[in-house]
Every structure is written in structure tokens, then in C-alpha cells.
């Protein structure tokens, strides 16, 4: 019984990673997203180095000091201050650069940790089935019964308003999302004959889970990871906008938007630029996610014959 389809595709293609990269590369927008995210990451890294090791020597006017007369509040954009200054005379551009540090840190760490833990739990649940699966998935259902931000607020309120706790809170919120996707992918992968074949060969369970099942579950998880990074940026910004995230004087984008909310007509640049920074970064992650989804789409890579 040979399967015939009616729109031809070549049978031979490059494999695995290279194939994905090729597909990704062909989407101009996705590459643009990658570029944007890379730039923001580099900026954040720069800020981190400056803050931790160089003592604000490189990027100045981030923190307010009443002893320095150069802090002139509410200045519009100019040569000296391309993004203007805020209510305390701090340079908005400099603070935006510093804001990148927090945002990227939160997004990358929270999502990567959540992805690792969540995927492992999900794959185990999907492969093992039975009581293990039921219990894990009920727990996931409970966690997913909370709107994401509401749960994050609750967690941060309980743990305290620090960078680490924001990361932990978001991580906890995202673990169930990965677990659910990992489980359903693992479930369908476990039904493939090669998993049965591995069982017939007598391979150990760790081998089957890690070498046979997991590698085939990665695609949707990767897509989800980049999309959740986008959400994480917004989530962190929302938390700091509400004053429930990283506390001043550490600059974060959400905080800056909040600070400027009272000066919308008189000094819109205070809110405008950090807001734009959030938008651009989130857009970048979303473009990467979309590009990955298209590149990894089994329909596009499927071998179809006449």
C-alpha cells in the first residue's frame, strides 16, 4: 500500500540542524528577529559588565546622585541626551540600556530553566502513562488554572520583590506550559514504531526516554521557548510597571514607563523609549518563534512522493 500524495517534493535534503537553519534563514523576518534579539542581548551584556565590573564608568547618568549638578530633569532629546532625561535628570538612553540587562536576564533564565524542568516532566509523563501521567497532568492543570500574571504576582508577593524571585516566579509559571506540550508530543512520539523497536531491543528506559523520545520532541518545545521568552519580557515589564518587580534604583523598562506615566503630555519621551524597547525586543523573540515554527513544520520537511 504505497502512499501517494499529489504535490511533489524531493526526497533528499540536508538533515537535522542544517536543514532547520536553512529553513529559518529563508525567512527574512525571522533573521531580522534574531538580529534584534542579539543586539539587545549584547547591550544587556554590556550593561552587566559596566554595572558589575566597571562601576558605571562606561554608561553614566544611570543612577541618581544629588551631589552632581549635571542632573537636569525633564530635558527633551538632544545631542547630550539622545533619549532625554527623566524626572530626576537621569539619562533615559543610559537607563534603557541598563533595563535591557534585567529584561534579558529574566527572560533567558526563567524560560530556559522552565523549559528544562517542564520538558523533562512532560516527556516522562507522556512516555510513562498511567498513574504517573495522571498525577503530573493534574498538577499541571492546577497550575494552568491560574492566569499567568496573577500567579506571578502572588508568587512574587510571597517571595519578595527581587530579580531572583521574579525569575523564580516566572519559571514556576512557565513550567506547566512546557510540561503540557512536552507530554502531548511525547505521547505521539511514543506511539511511533521506533519506540516500540527500542523496547523490543531491550534498551533501558533512560536510553529510550533520552535518546529515542526526547530528541524527537524538541521542535515544538523550541518554538514554545522563544514565544515564552517574548511573554517573559512583557511579564517582567508588567510586574515592574506595577511596582511589584525589581525595585528601584535598578532601572527596568516597566518601571521607567510607570515613572513617565504622569508626564505623558509634558515629557512623553520618558515612557516612550523604554516602551519602544520592550516592543522591539518582544517583536524580535516573536519573529524568531514564528521562523522556528515554520522551519520545523513537519509539513514543510515531509518527504512527499507522487
Amino acid at each position, binding site marked *: 500500500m504505497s502512499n501517494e500524495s499529489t504535490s511533489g517534493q524531493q526526497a533528499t535534503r540536508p538533515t537535522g540542524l542544517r536543514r532547520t537553519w536553512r529553513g529559518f534563514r529563508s525567512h527574512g523576518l525571522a533573521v531580522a528577529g534574531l538580529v534584534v534579539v542579539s543586539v539587545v542581548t549584547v547591550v544587556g551584556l554590556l550593561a552587566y559588565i559596566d554595572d558589575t565590573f566597571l562601576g558605571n564608568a562606561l554608561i553614566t547618568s544611570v543612577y541618581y546622585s544629588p551631589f552632581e549638578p549635571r542632573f537636569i530633569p525633564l530635558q527633551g532629546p538632544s545631542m547630550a541626551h539622545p533619549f532625554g532625561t527623566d524626572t530626576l535628570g537621569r539619562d533615559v538612553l543610559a537607563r534603557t540600556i541598563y533595563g535591557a540587562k534585567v529584561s534579558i536576564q529574566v527572560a533567558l533564565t526563567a524560560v530556559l530553566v522552565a523549559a528544562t524542568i517542564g520538558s523533562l516532566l512532560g516527556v516522562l509523563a507522556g512516555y510513562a502513562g498511567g498513574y504517573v501521567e495522571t498525577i503530573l497532568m*493534574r498538577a499541571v*492543570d492546577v497550575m494552568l488554572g*491560574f*492566569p499567568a500574571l496573577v500567579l506571578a504576582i*502572588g508568587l512574587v508577593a*510571597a*517571595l519578595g520583590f527581587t530579580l531572583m524571585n521574579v525569575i523564580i516566579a516566572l519559571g514556576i509559571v512557565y513550567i506547566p506550559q512546557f510540561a503540557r506540550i512536552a507530554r502531548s508530543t511525547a505521547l505521539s512520539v511514543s506511539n511511533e514504531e521506533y519506540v516500540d523497536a527500542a523496547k523490543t531491543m531491550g534498551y533501558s528506559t533512560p536510553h529510550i526516554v533520552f535518546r529515542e523520545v526526547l530528541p524527537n520532541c524538541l521542535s515544538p518545545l523550541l518554538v514554545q521557548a522563544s514565544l515564552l521568552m517574548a511573554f517573559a519580557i*512583557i511579564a517582567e515589564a508588567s510586574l515592574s510597571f506595577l511596582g511589584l518587580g525589581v525595585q528601584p534604583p535598578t532601572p527596568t523598562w516597566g518601571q521607567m514607563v510607570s515613572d513617565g506615566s504622569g508626564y505623558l*503630555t509634558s515629557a512623553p519621551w520618558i515612557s516612550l523609549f523604554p516602551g519602544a524597547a520592550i516592543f522591539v525586543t518582544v517583536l524580535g523573540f*516573536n519573529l524568531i518563534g514564528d521562523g522556528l515554527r515554520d522551519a520545523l513544520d513537519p509539513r514543510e520537511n515531509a518527504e512527499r512522493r507522487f
Partner: protein
Amino acid sequence: MKSRYIAIRLLQTVPVLFGVSVVVFIIIHSAPGDPIVNMLGIEATDENIAELRAAYGLNDPLYVQYFNWLAGILQGNLGQSLTRNRSVTALIVSRLPATLFLAAASMFIAIAIAIPAGIVSGVRKGTASDYGVTIGALTGVSIPNFWLGLVLILVFARTFGIFPSGNYVPLTENPVAALRHVALPAVTIGTAFAALLARQTRSSMLDNLNQEYIKMAKSKGLHSRKIFVRHALKQALLPVITVAGLQFGYLLSATVVVEQVFAWPGMGRLIWSSVQQQDYPTVQGAVLVVATLFVLVNLLVDLTYSYLDPRVSVS
């Protein structure tokens, strides 16, 4: 046997709700700071503190406190606010309608925009309208809602004065004013929601149009409009319903932030202010109500889906 499916889903929801209440309880009770001390101020003596602790039952072991609380909930008693002189239930009841109205308005706007846009985009894949919708959706999903809200206020309220910047007016009081006041916040929340729905609709549409049964319908000589409406549309919209239900959680999250921006007296604002004031019973009650609402909405969506899709009869 649909009734069996319904029964199973209902029964499955119970442990979830139960679990939600446990999680809420645990989180709130891990919060730092002693609310009693905050309440009484720095002047409080140790006896006062001890007295009040006993009165609030804060000396009992944790699981006893939990069961007392749970028992109270089932009777409609969510406790007493620590910082405001009202019961938590009363507070929630006073705030809930505002949030529900806002959520409904946002959903309405989102669906009205997203579904037609997604359909057009999917049917006319690769054309200008498709790109337009796709880019619009990407933008909508990437804009932080608080920022969008501020921009909308700047443009429509301050500059042009078309819509007021927030302040809830109940529908029953003055319909026109109510709609005017909810416009900006609803658009703020609705934008991201619309973006999500539009993308989902589009991909669902695309999936559908590639199916064999569409080709089959064509082979029967049916006109494309008929094929589209009867064969493609209904089938394509089914998954969108599920997604809409899941993303309702997004709506609820968004209200926390957007109500802040627009000074909207709803649940979101309540949660925020209670966290600020360390009014933990209120935070507890409000989060519980929001989460329960979400779970029930998901259940409703599931049941609606099973009603509409003839293939779902066994679980």
C-alpha cells in the same frame, strides 16, 4: 455518549479547583511580614499581638487554618480585609462586575476584529491582505499593553478628547457613558487578544483548506463560496474556540495591569492594591476567585467544543 463525557469533565474539574485553593493558600501563607504587626502599628504590645493572632486563628496548625478557610469559602465567607473595613466577599462583589464588563468588552472587540481578519488572511494566503494581517497580529502581540494604554490615553483622551481615560460607569446606569468609558481600556486589552486569535484563526484556516475533503467538495462541482462556508469554516473555527478559552487567562492577567493604567475599579486593581497593603486575606480571596473563574470558563469552552464537534462523544 455526550452525557458521559460531560460527567467526566465535571468530575475532573473538582480536584483541579481543590488544588487551586491549596496553591493559593500556600502561596499567601508564605508571604513575608506579619500582617498583624502591620495592622496594629509599631506601638503594639506583645499581648495585643498575641490576642489578635488568636482571634484570627493564626496560631492553629496550617492544615487546620486551611480547612477553616475552605469551609468558610463554601459558605461564601472569604474572610475579613485587614486594611479595609469590609469583608473580602463584599470587596470582591463590588469589584467583580467592573472586571467582567471590561473582559466582555475586550473579548467582543477582539473577536469582531480577529476572526474576520484571520479568515481573510488564511483564504487569501500570500496576498497583501494576508501580509497586512500577519504584520498587524505580530505587532499587536508584541506591544506591551500598559504602554499601549498610555499611548491611547495620550492620543484619544488628552489630545483629541474623544474617549475618557477610564473610570468605570456601570452599564445599568448609563449605557452610552458606560461604553464610552470602557472603550479605551477594552481596546488596550483587546488588541493583544485579537492578535493571538487572528493568528490562530489563520493557521486553522490554512490547515483546513489543505484537507482532502475540500478537494472532494470541489470535485463535486460545488461553488467555492459554498464549500468555504459549509465545509471549511465550521471546521476551522472549532480549534479557535478552544484557544479563545485558554487565552481568556491572558485577559484576566491583562486586567491587573490595564485597570491600573485606566484607574478602573476592578479585580485587577484590587489584587494590586491588596498586595501593596499586605492585605493578605483579600489577595487570597481575589486570586482564588479569578482562578476559579478561569477554570470554569475553560470547562465551559470544553463542553461547548464537544457539543459542536460531532467526533467528540467518547472522552
